[in-house]
């Protein structure tokens, strides 16, 4: 083996460690680390792996509940849904790799989150993605959009896990740093959840899956834990390359293996690969581990221990099994055509000792590596921009007498337009569980063998978070739950992906602190445990940070899978009603952005008590079978919500006429984004019952009009404000994204 480089201050710096951190390493281990050990500290103490900037704040998120089987700290969270089943879920970012190499970056993001889920013994049954790209005019946006969607499509489809929903947004704040957040939900038996532990002395460490290659080295430390600059393109080799076929085999083989009670623990080799999986398993079990890297299946000859330990080659797992079952385990893996090798065993020492070609190359205690990184007390400071942008004077905005133009422009905005072009590239039906197809408020999947269904929604309005991170994050939670309520589901758990800029800047940490606080307070109020999550910092390029984007995914439960509500109007002649109250709120709206190119004002007010009543009321209406459709009002406001319900009707478009009485500006009434509102439709004969029930809550409820005809018509105080043919509106809404993505430049 070649001589290892000497440890110099430059080498330490190149590994992303500060002088202070290096001195702490010397203190903790009482000697100088060798080159391989320095590499280990570099990845394990990186922001991505250690959460050293974010951890102090995350403690404020509520994570407990009677049905929580596993909260944060494991590969994914788990919640008991009864009937002997548990749902296991998590969302995770793969932002930087996807910006550099969109296809592989997004594909491996999907692969990684699936492994987090089946590592716990759960079969992945649903994928969702929250995607954010730069503005359409940015030359890179079309390339990134196509590449990311293609990557998700090729990986998810091949593994046979349906991609059932998600969100796609465009804003110039993501020009230099797109977001790709992948969510996966799996189904496990509630008494068979596997954890990443090593168990007793003598247990064998079994390496499973793809061979280890040189790809992805320092993906976690150098790529994910620093902001972008001119050298970003040079980091392309740190992006991993995915093989979805191997992932599919790995799913089947691992689930088969986990049927046996001699399997003690499982951990996937994700960020920081073999290093994090071995150190973390040992640390959690307060055990030691000895490994021999000469036994690791390698893709190429001549790899050093440093490279083997830091490789982020995909589709690899580490199992801990009881001794005496090695042959059985290997036979199952060989049946599925996978590489497998016993590479070490659990010891009663307190550290990890690693050999290579007969020589010890690593001997480190687990605590300093796994938990030794100091929590950084990052400074926070309220950003100055807030004072500037909060000044939105509505009287200065032009106030057009009709709303047709605004409606058409909004329907053609890629943030509102149909995402059909995206989700038609994903197999969203495989496994025969998808009760509500993509394009709705929430995805709904039946749980086979039970009467239940789960609903999933992923959400974040980052404009609101930019204007007020506390309120914005609380709104993300509220809206996600409202999406679930519109399908008939009660929220049972939440996972988050906190995407922010450079934590070394106090303004960014202030945004982070506020957002986590807002999210935590909302979760407490709505009584939703946060069971897993991921933090992605350094989302900025040359000092330009993204809007704070604390994406949340909420999972809900539907007790009766035959009572699932959808957003489309069902028949002409039904009444249309609005649950909730509309205020003159245009701050941070899509309307303000699309028509006036402004991201200003304050986000809409969220009254949590009212929000809860609105959701409970909607759920009761669905339970009692009183309504035929329900759709959350979000981007684009009331007009867009009603238009979408028209488009989603089974008859390819039912018209609607709204007769509104209001003292608000027409644009605020139709396009403002007041919170806590749901558009419903129902047969006329239920009107009294619904109105009575609304009074008993009490919750605001008004009749808006009727379904029917071929036009979307809105009259305000007796004057026509909008009248457009549904067919032509639908065409704009349906084709915008596809024709943008398909253009050749």
């Amino acid at each position, binding site marked *: 083996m070649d001589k290892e480089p000497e440890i110099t201050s430059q080498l330490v710096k190149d590994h992303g460690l500060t002088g202070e951190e290096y001195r702490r390493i010397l203190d903790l281990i009482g000697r100088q680390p060798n080159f391989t050990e320095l590499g280990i500290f570099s990845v394990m103490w990186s922001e991505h792996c250690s959460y050293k900037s974010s951890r102090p704040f995350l403690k404020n998120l509520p994570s407990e509940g009677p049905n929580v089987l596993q909260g944060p700290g494991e590969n994914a969270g788990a919640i008991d849904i009864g009937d002997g089943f548990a749902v296991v879920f998590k969302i995770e970012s793969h932002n930087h790799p996807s910006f550099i190499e969109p296809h592989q970056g997004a594909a491996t993001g999907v692969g990684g989150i699936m492994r987090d889920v089946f590592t716990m013994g759960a079969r992945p049954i649903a994928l969702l993605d929250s995607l954010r790209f730069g503005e359409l005019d940015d030359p890179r946006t079309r390339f990134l959009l196509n590449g990311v969607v293609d990557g998700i499509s090729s990986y998810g*489809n*091949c*593994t*046979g896990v349906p991609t059932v929903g998600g969100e796609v947004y465009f804003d110039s704040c993501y020009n230099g740093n797109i977001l790709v957040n992948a969510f996966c939900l799996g189904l496990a038996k509630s008494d068979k959840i596997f954890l990443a532990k090593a168990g007793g002395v003598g247990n064998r460490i079994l390496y499973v899956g793809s061979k280890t290659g040189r790809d992805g080295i320092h993906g976690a430390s150098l790529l994910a834990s620093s902001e972008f600059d001119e050298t970003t393109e040079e980091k392309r080799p740190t992006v991993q390359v995915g093989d979805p076929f191997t992932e599919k085999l790995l799913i089947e083989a691992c689930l088969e293996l986990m049927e046996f009670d001699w399997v003690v623990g499982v951990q996937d080799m994700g960020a920081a690969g073999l290093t994090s999986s071995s150190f973390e398993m040992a640390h959690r079990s307060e055990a030691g581990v000895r490994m021999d890297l000469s036994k690791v299946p390698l893709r190429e000859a001549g790899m050093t221990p440093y490279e083997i330990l830091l490789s982020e080659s995909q589709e690899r797992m580490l199992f801990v099994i009881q001794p005496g079952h090695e042959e059985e385990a290997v036979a199952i893996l060989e049946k*599925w055509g996978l590489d497998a090798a016993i590479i070490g065993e659990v010891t009663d020492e307190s550290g990890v000792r690693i050999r290579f070609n007969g020589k010890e190359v690593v001997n480190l205690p687990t605590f300093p590596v796994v938990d030794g990184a100091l929590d950084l007390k990052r400074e926070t400071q309220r950003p100055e921009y807030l004072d500037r942008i909060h000044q939105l004077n509505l009287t200065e905005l032009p106030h057009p007498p009709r709303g047709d133009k605004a409606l058409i422009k909004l329907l053609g905005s890629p943030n509102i337009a149909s995402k059909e072009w995206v989700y038609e590239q994903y*197999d969203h039906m*495989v496994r025969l569980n998808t*009760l509500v197809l993509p394009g709705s408020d929430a995805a709904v999947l039946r749980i*086979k063998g039970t009467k239940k269904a789960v609903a999933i929604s992923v959400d974040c309005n980052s404009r609101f978070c930019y204007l007020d991170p506390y309120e914005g994050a609380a709104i993300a939670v509220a809206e996600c739950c409202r999406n679930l309520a519109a399908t008939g589901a009660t929220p049972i758990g939440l996972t988050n992906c906190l995407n922010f800029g450079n934590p070394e800047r106090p303004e960014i940490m202030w945004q982070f602190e506020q957002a986590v606080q807002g999210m935590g307070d909302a979760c407490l109020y709505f009584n939703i445990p946060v069971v897993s999550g991921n933090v992605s910092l350094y989302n900025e390029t040359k000092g330009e940070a993204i809007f704070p984007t604390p994406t949340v995914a909420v999972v809900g439960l539907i007790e009766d899978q035959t009572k699932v509500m959808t957003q489309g109007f069902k028949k002409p002649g039904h009444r249309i009603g609005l649950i909730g109250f509309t205020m003159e709120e245009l701050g941070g709206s899509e309307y303000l952005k699309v028509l006036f190119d402004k991201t200003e004002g304050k986000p809409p007010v969220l009254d949590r008590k009212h929000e809860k009543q609105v959701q409970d009321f909607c759920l009761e209406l669905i339970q009692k079978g009183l309504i035929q459709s329900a759709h959350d009002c979000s981007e684009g406001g009331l007009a867009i919500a009603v238009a979408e319900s028209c488009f989603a009707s089974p008859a390819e478009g039912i018209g609607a006429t709204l007769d509104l009485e209001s003292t608000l500006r027409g644009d605020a009434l139709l396009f403002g984004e007041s919170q806590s509102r749901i558009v419903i439709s129902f047969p006329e004969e239920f009107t009294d019952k619904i109105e009575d029930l609304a009074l008993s809550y009490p919750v605001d409820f008004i009749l808006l009009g009727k379904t029917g005809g071929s036009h979307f018509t809105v009259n305000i105080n007796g004057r026509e404000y909008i009248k457009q043919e549904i067919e032509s509106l639908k065409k704009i809404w349906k084709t915008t994204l596809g024709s943008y993505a398909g253009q050749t430049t």
Partner: protein
Amino acid sequence: MKCGIVVFPGSNCDHDCYHILKKVLNQETHWLWHKDNADLSSFDLVVLPGGFSYGDYLRAGAISRFSPVMNSVISFAKKGGKVLGICNGFQILVESGLLPGALMQNHTRKFICKNVYVRVESTHTPFTQECSDKSVLQIPIAHHQGSYYIDPHSLGDLEEKGQILFRYCDAEGNITDSSNPNGSVSSVAGLCNAQKNVMGMMPHPERCADPLWPNVDGQSIFKSLITQS
């Protein structure tokens, strides 16, 4: 009816076919592992399910045709056994020569997953006898390489012998360019061999056969087979 479902490495829709045949339609259903050279003589139907067998690397179905189980499937078919290939299964049937033609990349060059309509072109086969002639079924597709191609002369042959079983159409049964989702020649969505015991189709009938959903159009294909046996 005794059914066998072949499991290739990368099969995805094997569980869905199993669910419909076993749980919904109450048929005796077994798994057939790709490495086994099984005796299929006691089976009434062998299903090659959808998915990405061998990752669809090289070309969809091109590697699977060399699986040991395919020897059994081919001799089963030669003896008149009924074989249904869905999506990736259709691709494997074409690659292994049990069905004519080829399946190429969609003309959109994208994976497409959506509900489409197909028109039943012939009811004189064990796969379609429970369907009404020229009836329109709504069945989802989910594929990247589903554009069927065959030379014009052979296409004429297929038509003449009543081997074309399904064509993509609109909701009213009209066959137009815009109702053809992937660029298949003559809008062919499914066909059978000359002996009418081997059928391949790109749409997934197993995805619309569970009564939990309002659409159960796919059942007519499975019911045709059940009535037969």
